[in-house]
C-alpha cells in the first residue's frame, strides 16, 4: 500500500517536473528569439564588411562569438537548422583564422545563417 502511494507520488512529481520543464523551455525560447534580433544586426553588419573586404579581426571575433552562442542554444529550443548553420559559421571562421579560407566560402555560410535568422524571426509569433 505504502509502495503504491509512493509510486503514485513519483508519477505525479515527474508529470509536474515535465510541465515545469515545458514552460521553462518556452520562456528560454522566447528569450532566445528576442536575443536573435541583436545577433542579426551584428551578423548583418559583419556580412556587409566581409563582402566589401573590410572585415576586421574584431568583426571575425564577433561573428565567432555570436555563431557559437546560436549553435549552443538554438537546437535546445527547437531550431536545429539554425544551430547547424551556427556551427558551420563558427567552424569556417575558426579555420579562416588559422589557415585562411576563401572569402566566397565565408560569405556563403554567413549569408545562410543570416537568412535563416531572418526566416526564424518572421515565422515567430
Amino acid at each position: 500500500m505504502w509502495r503504491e502511494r509512493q509510486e503514485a507520488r513519483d508519477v505525479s512529481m515527474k508529470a509536474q517536473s515535465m510541465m515545469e520543464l515545458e514552460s521553462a523551455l518556452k520562456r528560454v525560447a522566447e528569450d532566445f528569439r528576442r536575443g536573435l534580433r541583436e545577433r542579426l544586426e551584428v551578423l548583418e553588419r559583419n556580412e556587409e564588411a566581409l563582402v566589401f573586404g573590410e572585415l576586421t579581426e574584431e568583426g571575425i571575433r564577433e561573428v565567432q562569438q555570436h555563431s557559437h552562442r546560436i549553435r549552443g542554444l538554438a537546437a535546445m529550443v527547437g531550431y536545429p537548422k539554425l544551430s547547424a548553420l551556427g556551427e558551420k559559421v563558427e567552424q569556417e571562421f575558426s579555420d579562416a583564422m588559422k589557415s585562411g579560407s576563401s572569402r566566397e566560402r565565408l560569405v556563403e555560410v554567413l549569408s545562410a545563417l543570416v537568412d535563416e535568422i531572418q526566416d526564424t524571426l518572421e515565422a515567430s509569433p
Partner: protein
Amino acid sequence: MTVILAVDDDPAIGHLLNEILSAFGYKSTTVANSATEALRLIASGAVSPDVILLDIQMPEMDGIELCRRIRAIPKHSKTPIVMLTAMAEKSYVEDAFLAGATDYVTKPFDPMALVSRVRVAAMLAEEQKKASQVAVSPSSARTVEHADFAHPFVIDEIPGVVAANVLCNFIEQMRRIERMGLVAFAINVPQSAQICARVTRAQYESFVTDLAAEIMEVLVSARAFIAHMGRGTFVAVAPKSRVPDRGTIIDSLRAAINDPDRVYSDGTRDVLDVELGQFVSPALISRESGAELLERAVAKLNRLDLATNRSTLNVA
C-alpha cells in the same frame, strides 16, 4: 539540498540550465558568467557547490583551466565537475578529463539527459560527504584498520588516474567521437592481496597509489587513462593506435614497479609481478556501456588466471 554552480559565458545558457534544473527540484543553482566570477564565488564562500557544471569555451579563462584551478582548491578536489560544451573534439575531451572533470556532456543536450547526469553527480557528491564523515569519526581513528581489498578507492593528483565512473564517462565520450579507436585492458599485481592483509589501510593506499603512478609512467605516451578497480587491479583505456604491444607493457611495468631503490623503512622490499589481461575493444554492434567494457577487460584478466591456474583477484 544539492547546491549547483553552473558556469557559462552565455547568459541564455545559464538561464536555460537554471530553468531545467529547477524544474527537476534542483532549486539551489547559481550561475556565473565567467571563470573569474566562479572562482570569486567559491573563494569568498558565497557558493559552496556540491556539483559544478562548466562550459569549456569561454573568453579569458576557459573551462578546462577553470576545472584545473577548482581541483587545486582542497575543498573541491573531489567535487563532481560536469563539462558542458559544444566542443566534441577528441583533444577537448582528453584535456577535460586530464584537468579533473568527472563527466562531459555535449551541447546541444537533451534536458532529461542533463538532469540524469546531474543526479548521478549529486549522488557521487553525497557518497563523498558520507565517506569523509566516516574518515574523521573518532571510532575509525582509534583502531588500526586494514584496507578493504575488494573496494576501489579514488587516487588523487596523478594526471590520467581517475575514478572508475569517470573512466566509464570518458569511454562513452570517446566512443561518440572515435568509434573503434579505443582499447581497454586490465593490469593486476598478484602480491597486492598479501600486502593488503599485512599493512594498514594508509600504507596499502600509498602502495596502490605508487603502483598507479608507475603504471601511468609506462602508459603516458599512449595517452592512457587508468582507474583502480580494487583487488590490486587497474583498468587502462587508451587509443588503440598508441598502445605498445603486450610484451613491451609487461616488461616496462615489471621494471618500473620493481625499482631496486624502493624499499620499506625496515630495508625489505616485495618482488612484484604483473599480469596483463587481453586487450578488448568496444563491441561494434551492441551498445556496450563504458562500465560493461571495463567489466569485460577485468573478466579477460580472470580468464588469464584460470588458464595459468593462478588465483589473482580473490587471494585470501
